[in-house]
């Protein structure tokens, strides 16, 4: 249907993943196979799943832990964010972006996870962050975030 938004934002409502300060969500787009964070997350093996969820827990409760997640200092990537885990010696990443989608709750921060990548070298590939930034600035993605969060009352959702 013309005008239909190809992007959907799925809030992670389990495991107290939305508290009064922070929340997690996945960006989904059937037309763009590179937006694969949700499908990768749903297929994780137990050990990887536990590693990543531990990182989610830490971030959601305000802990700092660069081994498990971090953002970037450079201005152009300051809203990008990554969660990390390992399977054997293989490093894995879920890249996404941070935003403050609720006017009534300006301190509430949502991390929208976008894409998965494997990583073994130190530097992040710039194209991955560019993709994340492009999506972050995309009006349709913003609209999808608004739709997903319109009834959200941080701290009250279980």
């Amino acid at each position, binding site marked *: 249907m013309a005008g239909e938004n190809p992007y959907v934002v799925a809030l992670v*409502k*389990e*495991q*107290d993943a939305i508290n009064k300060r922070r929340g997690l969500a996945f960006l989904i787009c059937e037309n763009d196979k590179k937006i694969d964070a949700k499908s990768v997350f749903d297929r994780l093996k137990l050990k990887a*799943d*536990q*590693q990543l*969820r*531990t990182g989610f*827990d*830490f971030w959601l*409760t305000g*802990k700092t*832990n660069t*081994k498990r997640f971090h953002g970037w200092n450079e201005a152009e990537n300051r809203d990008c964010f990554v969660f990390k885990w*390992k399977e054997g010696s293989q490093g894995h990443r879920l890249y996404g972006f941070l935003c403050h989608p609720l006017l009534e709750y300006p301190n509430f921060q949502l991390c929208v996870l976008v894409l998965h990548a494997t990583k073994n070298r130190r530097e992040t590939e710039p194209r991955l962050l560019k993709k994340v930034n492009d999506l972050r600035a995309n009006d349709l993605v913003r609209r999808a975030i608004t739709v997903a969060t319109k009834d959200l009352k941080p701290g009250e959702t*279980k």
Partner: protein
Amino acid sequence: MAHWTERSTDAFLYRITADLLDQLEERIQSKSLSKAELAKKLGVSKGRISQILNNPKGNLSLKTIIRYARALGMKVTIVAYDDGDPDNQRGPINSDIFRACWENSGQPADFWSVQELQCAATNVAMLPAISPTQIVKVSVVHVGQEPLLGSTRANRLYEQQFAVSSARRVPEILFSKSAGLETEAVTGVDNSNLTTFH
């Protein structure tokens, strides 16, 4: 919906082990200790250190945890707590939060220090030295409810007599239960009416 650590005991164990190992790793970094040095202290290989820190199997024994902590000059304690979440919807409280609270409280090492901290935190007045059999009249104002109740009623509600134990502190829990409300602060102590309980 329950937190993911409610899926199995192993999941819960993984999560709290990850908490603890992160603390050890932060300690290694803060002491600028190399993994090789730690391995030497523990009499294990460097690879074993990396394996433990990066890849917790979830079956790390308490003995191993203590050995690692002691090698880093740390101690370990085990705390069972009730956070009002019996169905585990929110997951475990991060051990760093317990540690931070303890450190921010001046690292109390005995129960007298804890009682003093509790009194200071809740503004609970300390009573003068009395015997366990004395009755002390204490005025308590429930600060949070005062605007609703009116100060006169609030004072009448909370101005009660209690036998005070030799701990010499107002047993604030008694006030709460007696009034059917939570007491937020003790704002005044009237000890002019000390009498001996026979």
